[in-house]
């Protein structure tokens, strides 16, 4: 029970202090998880291969969709607008992104479930202001080869001479820095405390 969990389904393990890589700018508010990963690809008993189906229908409808743009091949930092990942709780959406190589996301805002699901995979979702997101997206669109560095401790995002401040919820930030972003082992420690809570719940003890 005390073994350190290795999230086999996730691309990373251990502390996440910094992410460096090229960006992909995906514009639009309220992009839901049905669009990120259409439901038909959830018909499977594993997460394998989901990276091939990201935005499959959006890409088919729009030949210029950012996820079909070869200039962004190999990008590892996704830059989005407001309420990214809203709707269904399907982890298949962040699983697909993580398996495609995305190691961090920066957006105006994220759905809570999506942000939490991504954190469980070792992928931080940073929140920045609308003007900051616009500058980052414009930079990435103009120079897709630009290297972006995201510092988890400070929330500072650096891309050439551009410096932008972003934030993570403090507990998620600390979890990434300490390597405890995958909480199962913590939840299993001192299990007597868990049993004590169960023992005080009226609905588990016949009222």
């Amino acid at each position, binding site marked *: 029970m005390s073994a350190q969990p290795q999230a086999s389904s996730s691309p990373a393990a251990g502390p996440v202090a910094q992410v460096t890589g090229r960006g992909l700018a995906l514009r639009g508010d309220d992009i839901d998880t049905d*669009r990120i990963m*259409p439901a038909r690809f959830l*018909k499977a*008993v594993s*997460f394998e291969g989901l990276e091939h189906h990201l935005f499959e229908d959006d890409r088919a409808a729009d030949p210029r969709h950012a996820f079909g743009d070869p200039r962004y091949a190999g990008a590892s930092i996704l830059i989005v607008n407001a309420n990214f990942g*809203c709707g269904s709780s399907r982890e298949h959406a962040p699983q697909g992104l993580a398996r495609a190589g995305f190691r961090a996301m920066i957006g105006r805002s994220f759905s*809570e479930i999506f942000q939490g699901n991504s954190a469980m995979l070792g992928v931080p979702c940073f929140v920045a202001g609308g003007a900051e997101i616009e500058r980052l997206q414009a930079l990435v669109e103009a120079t897709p080869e630009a290297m972006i560095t995201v510092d988890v401790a400070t929330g500072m995002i650096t891309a050439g001479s551009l410096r932008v401040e972003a934030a993570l919820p403090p507990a998620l930030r600390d979890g990434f820095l300490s390597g405890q972003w995958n*909480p199962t082992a913590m939840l299993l420690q001192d299990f007597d405390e868990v049993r004590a809570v169960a023992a005080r719940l*009226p609905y588990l003890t016949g009222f």
Partner: protein
Amino acid sequence: MAATLFQKVWDLHTVRTLPSGQTQLFVGLHLVHEVTTPQAFDMLRQHGWAVAFPERTFATVDHIVPTSSQKRPFLDMMAEQMMSALEHNCLEAGIKLWAPDSENQGIVHVIGPELGLTQPGMTIACGDSHTSTHGALGAIAFGIGTSQVRDVLASQCLSLDPLKVRRIEVSGRLSRGVYAKDVILTIIRRLGVHGGVGFAYEYGGNTLEAMTIDERMTICNMSIEGGARIGYVNPDETTFAFLRGRRFAPAGDAFDRAVAWWRTMATDANAAYDDRVAFDASTIEPTVTWGINPGQSVAVTEPIDAAPGDEALEFMGFKTGTRVQGTRIDVAFIGSCTNGRLSDLEEAARVVRGHHVAKHVKALIVPGSQAVRRAAEARGLHEVFIDAGFEWRGAGCSMCLGMNPDKLEGRQISASSSNRNFKGRQGSPTGRTLLMSPAMVAAAAIAGEVVDVREVLEGVPA
């Protein structure tokens, strides 16, 4: 100190503050279905972890089940594989499963309350965003991802940050032809599809107090469409009466003790909220979505106010300033965890009785559970629907999402009682969804186009 139900339930279920600063929260009831759990059970096996509290997890199958015939093996090999995986996982872990051949299978958010599993003062988690539904009974219920399902299976706990609480006060009488669905669509329209991020929504006011549990479930169900992971209504006499006699509800003296405790869990009179908003129910009209998220709605008689060139308008094929009323539909779907309960079918039947579905419309009635289907049949509702030209189906998620044989084709337009009008949601990448109440869907099925249900109800006994 005065507290909200959210704070009381959160505190009661807190195990401790984790080193990360998040709360370790005990999950009183864990519900699972076939789509978001096979990978979680695999992760457990890889680590050699056992299921910590198998008696607090209950399973059913809903997303992938065909609704025309639920005979095993399913014709779709992948659906059959998912069903088999769930059976295997539940058997191995000692988890109760209601499969299609059991009489209690159904949509997970329909059967939880129906069986009395869902109770006030509980924490409830499920790998499904519509878990907020269960808040209608005064539970703190929320959707989780698959890695979190793994955590709940392994430890019966989650690592979470607390939420703020927004009180949504709805007062006044709903007009005839206006339903809980119209109330929640109106709330989402005003507060926005991400207005609820960071909040639990507490719904109250005399409109909510006058509602049945079914109606409250419709409202809490769509909290997530407004960005709020949790929505709830404080437990009251309606809640207690709903639970009495249900299979997993306490019985005898224990029921009375439970009611006494449930009362104490409701929000205190002078509790502080992080935010408050108010709605006047008497001004709400039958509401329909015109766009590609549930916040893009109008009253059925109201012109669409989006700017020309708007992505949603273009996808849907609407023009600025036109009305949704009069839009020709191809499909009518009544069902889902939002509106697939007995009372929804009764309201639809009231509209349908004595009429026939328009020739060009494919119309489906999909009960939310096998129990709903049986209860409807006991009342003869299936005959009303079948005589009118509707297909009477078995229980499941059906056309709410494209994971089973019930799907839109091409650019079809569906009048739907479900919860999401996202692009591609109903199984065709170019299919179009108009969300509305079950009565509005029934009226649209008969007229062959979107109509104002208030006009149809004139002359129908209340």
